[in-house]
């Protein structure tokens, strides 16, 4: 990978990586660190990373750092408390916001899998390569996550 390819990756994937890291860590500050570190690693390893594989490489680094970061600091529980304190009032049934709240119910790994699937459209196989899981594991974890999200949506709908 050349300098030009690297800079193109920044332009192309920095935002997506930031959104992914934000949802994974639940914290913008940590997400910025994750993005910076991910690109720094990519720069250091640029000789060994083909431009076509750069995006997956970035998400792999970001996934590892986000999940590690979350596991160490466990900040999402704090965020979850804040979210739970928010009252869901009729008329506030914005699906997007409800889904974001539902996302906090997932463990860090399942959340990352859903984000990789929905945000980036990766296949089970690609997610497996990024996360180090096999395809079957990805499918199982994702389906568990979907079920949790669906049940949360249904429960909120019933409350409303």
């Amino acid at each position: 990978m050349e300098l030009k390819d690297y800079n193109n990756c920044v332009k192309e994937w920095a935002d997506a990586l930031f959104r992914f890291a934000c949802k994974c860590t639940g914290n913008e500050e940590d997400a910025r660190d994750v993005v910076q570190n991910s690109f720094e690693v990519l720069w250091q390893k640029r000789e060994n990373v083909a431009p076509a594989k750069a995006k997956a490489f970035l998400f792999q680094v970001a996934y590892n750092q986000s999940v590690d970061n979350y596991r160490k600091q466990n900040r999402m529980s704090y965020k979850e408390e804040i979210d739970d304190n928010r009252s869901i009032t009729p008329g506030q049934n914005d699906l997007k916001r409800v889904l974001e709240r539902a996302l906090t119910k997932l463990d860090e790994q399942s959340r990352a899998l859903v984000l990789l699937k929905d945000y980036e459209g990766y296949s089970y196989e690609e997610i497996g390569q990024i996360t180090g899981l096999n395809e079957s594991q990805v499918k199982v974890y994702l389906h568990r996550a979907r079920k949790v999200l669906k049940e949360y949506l249904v429960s909120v709908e019933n409350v409303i």
Partner: protein
Amino acid sequence: MVNLENYEEYMMMYADGELNEAETKALMDFVAANPELAKELEAYSATKLVPDTTMVYANKDQLMKAPPAGGRTIGMRTWWMYAAAAAVLLFTVTIMRQGGDTADSPVVVSNTPATTQPVSTQPTQTSVIEYNTEKDSNREELHSNPIGPVTHENNIANTKSKKQKVKTVIEEQPKEEIRIAKEEKTIPAPQQPAYKPENEPVQQVIAQQTEKPNKAEEANEPIEELNQPQKQRRRLIDLLPISKNKREGASMIASAVTKRVENVTDNLKDTDIKFKIGNKEIFVVKL
């Protein structure tokens, strides 16, 4: 085939976008046949997250890398070269200063007379080597003059005549001339009065010797052996960015060190080995 056992998995795969056309059609047909499942399919479909494109990473420029500027790289290299040169210079100066400290300390002077302290009955080790030729004796005199007080009174007294002799030697030996001339230049003028008083009692001269043992020692140094390393040291010393006084001091230290090494060699060759700390003789090995 979609059925009541596996429809949920199909719905989740549908939400994941992992179903092909045929599988999608099969699921839709199954839901159409079981309308009570339509809401569940809708709920699963709703779990699909949509990225918030308004959320962007603000400082992309900081992540980007600039092509390496040639000038800047060279500048860094130059900087390192200067740093390395400065380090070497600092090391050299430090070593020189440490040497100066050592010279100032009361080091053993083997020809320090017993008047200051009764040391031993053994003859002093740095015996003056007598030179047969007039040239050598002249040189000895010349060399002893700038570096330190001399034990022989006649040496101290006849400074002018010595210089004349030196000039004669210089004329005779052009190669030696440069060396001797340099030594003469480096002679610190203020030191002259120390050797001047001819009428002073011998005790006083001896006292000076004990204060500056290295200089006294060097006075008796055979010039032939001493000049060579001294010359080399002078050249290095001249390059150092230190004051003239310090340079002269360093020069004398260099001479003293050389002399000491030669003394050891001579001792091994000729008579015996003495070890002294300060003016105290520790032991003597007689060979």
